[in-house]
């Protein structure tokens, strides 16, 4: 009897159905409770122990890492100059990287933050994000070439230009806005609120479009 149940439990593992076990074992027995515990584990309803890989994959962990290390990098590097709360920002650091390298190569005088202007090379965090994302995707076999049409490429290219210019008018992307909020800048809270309302409007438009396509 017990072996039969084990076999059914294993086959249920394969087909993701626990119906045979419920019929096989009488309820309120120890074996039933053990199997039910196993089911809850399988569905992720019980966390048996702290899982490091699950922690690394949680966005809140990355949020804490960015927040604390951005503050730490300011402690290390603020002597080189530059604005405060500048530890991590995709838009500003892309601007610093491209304009700084252009200044070095083409001997121009494009504007960039003081921390990049005074340093040997501009801030490199965007290069790090690209390489780090590539390493993570390759190690976990998630690197996959996804192509689009030429029209989509043009739309994405133009929106990239637009988003960077808009972010530079404010002085930061959503991440520097969060860092500035943590640093005590009230303008950044207004930016985040405006961004949230923009996202809600955009998502509403997407929802309407999807409903129209469905009929």
């Amino acid at each position, binding site marked *: 009897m017990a072996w039969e149940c084990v076999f059914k439990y294993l086959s249920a593992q394969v087909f993701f159905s626990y119906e045979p076990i419920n019929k096989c074992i009488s309820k309120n027995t120890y074996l039933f409770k053990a199997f039910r515990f196993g089911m809850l584990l399988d569905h992720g309803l019980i966390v048996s122990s702290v899982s490091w890989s699950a922690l690394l994959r949680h*966005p809140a962990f990355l949020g804490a890492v960015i927040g604390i290390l951005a503050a730490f990098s300011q402690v290390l590097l603020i002597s080189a100059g530059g604005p405060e709360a500048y530890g991590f920002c995709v838009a500003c650091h892309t601007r610093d990287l491209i304009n700084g390298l252009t200044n070095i190569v083409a001997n121009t005088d494009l504007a960039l933050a003081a921390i990049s202007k005074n340093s040997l090379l501009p801030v490199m965090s965007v290069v790090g994000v690209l390489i780090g994302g590539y390493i993570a995707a390759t190690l976990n076999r998630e690197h996959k070439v996804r192509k689009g049409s030429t029209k989509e490429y043009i739309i994405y290219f133009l929106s990239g230009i637009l988003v960077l210019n808009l972010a530079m008018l404010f002085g930061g992307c959503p991440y520097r806005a969060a860092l500035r909020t943590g640093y005590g800048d009230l303008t950044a809270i207004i930016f985040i609120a405006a961004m949230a309302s923009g996202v809600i409007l955009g998502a509403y438009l997407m929802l309407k479009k999807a409903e129209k396509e469905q009929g």
Partner: protein
Amino acid sequence: MATGIFSKEVAVFAVPIVTLLLGLLIGYLAQRSGYCSIGGFRDYFLFRHTRLLFGYFTLIIASFAGYLFFWFITPAAMEHFFWAVTSGPANPMPGAPVGLNAVAYLLFAIVPGFLVGIIAVLLGGCPIRQTVMASEGNYKAAWFFLGMCVGSIIFAAFISGWVIAVMKTLGFGA
């Protein structure tokens, strides 16, 4: 002048190295978690999923905690912490085009914020998500990143000066 742990001579060399290491860690974790600030608000609005939104709010709280902690340890590096107290609540941090008044910076927070929200949600991700997707092999996101690179030169060469000139003509000069 704010001074950190490194002296200026050392910090000049350390800036690319420290930011590169920080970026590597952030890029790795961002790929694993699918981190996205725009996606957080979008998922909450559409599906009531709080996973990504929780990540973004954690960033705000953790940055406040981090700045507060290091402000206690090395106050010289955090010259203007807490900004709203030391520099006035209407005064924004440097980063936006200089030489305008508080109303202009308020407009620069509201209008670009709203437009960035709409554009990014229609494209399917904020700048960091697009950068990570580009490194995952998404060509559309790579074109977005290329657009950001070209846009940075365009902004520094043209848009920045034009916007300041237009805003000063409209009476928003400092």
